[in-house]
């Protein structure tokens, strides 16, 4: 079987993505976990690109790497002294979690491999950003606006929740 360069690239990126994700799951140091997640999110962006979803790949980098990852780092640095920021994995929880994960894998993997998925060859030429943009301001306008309202609510809610003080000695927000 002849492997093309794109196939080899896929295998490399998939292995890198899964490895960094596994490291983020299994390491006991939360700072290392967050930095390892950087590789996962970049790998996901490359996989999106290989599926010719270019706009989603860019948004993935912008939002996940530029936003969520920085937010996670902020949370780690604000909540714990870095040295003692260990993640414990208790014995009891470990076995049940492993059981659930393995059970999910037993269900999902054969399904992904053996189900007769409908596969149509799609010739994607050029970027699909224009289609997405027209759709967002066309038939998807209502969800688009609803998401903007949700984001406004999240901004206000996050600020209010993060300002909660014990006993309200701040004088502005009582918990």
């Amino acid at each position, binding site marked *: *079987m002849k*492997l093309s360069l*794109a196939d080899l690239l*896929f*295998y490399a990126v*998939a292995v890198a993505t*899964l490895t960094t*994700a*596994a490291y*983020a*799951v299994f390491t006991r140091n939360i700072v290392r*976990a967050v930095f390892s*997640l950087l590789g*996962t999110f970049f790998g*996901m962006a490359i*996989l*999106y690109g*290989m*599926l010719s*979803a270019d*706009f*989603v790949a860019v948004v*993935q980098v912008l*939002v*996940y790497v530029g936003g969520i990852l920085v*937010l*996670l780092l*902020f*949370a780690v640095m*604000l*909540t714990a002294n870095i040295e003692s920021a260990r*993640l*414990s*994995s208790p014995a009891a*929880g470990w076995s049940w979690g*492993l059981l*659930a*994960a*393995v059970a*999910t*894998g037993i269900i*999902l993997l054969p399904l*992904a491999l053996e189900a007769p998925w*409908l*596969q*149509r060859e*799609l010739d994607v030429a050029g970027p*699909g950003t224009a*289609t*997405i943009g027209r*759709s967002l301001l066309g038939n998807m306008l209502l*969800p688009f606006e609803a*998401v903007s309202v949700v*984001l406004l609510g*999240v*901004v206000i*809610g996050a600020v209010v*929740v*993060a300002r909660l003080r*014990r006993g309200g000695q701040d004088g502005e927000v009582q918990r």
Partner: protein
Amino acid sequence: MIQVGLQHFLVVGALLFCLGILCVLTRRNAVAVLIGIELMLNAAGLNFIAFARHQGDLAGGSLLVLFVIVLAAAEAAVALALILAFRRQVRTLDVDQIDSLKG
């Protein structure tokens, strides 16, 4: 190793989802639980894009994943604000000990 098709992406998504479940169920630190949730959302997004690519409606799948990404960001912001508030009030990030609504 065979030619890369739909199944390959589905397998990557499934493995990523399992890792996310493992992270959510076994970790005690609230930030680590959030990491697991992000992994699961990423796995779902990969499946959406893979199906969309191989069934002819790439724009539709992309839109769905875009909304998922936006809501994941919103969820992360709220969760981290909650984590900060918990840290200040209960002095812990252990999700096993965070069990009271009225702190």
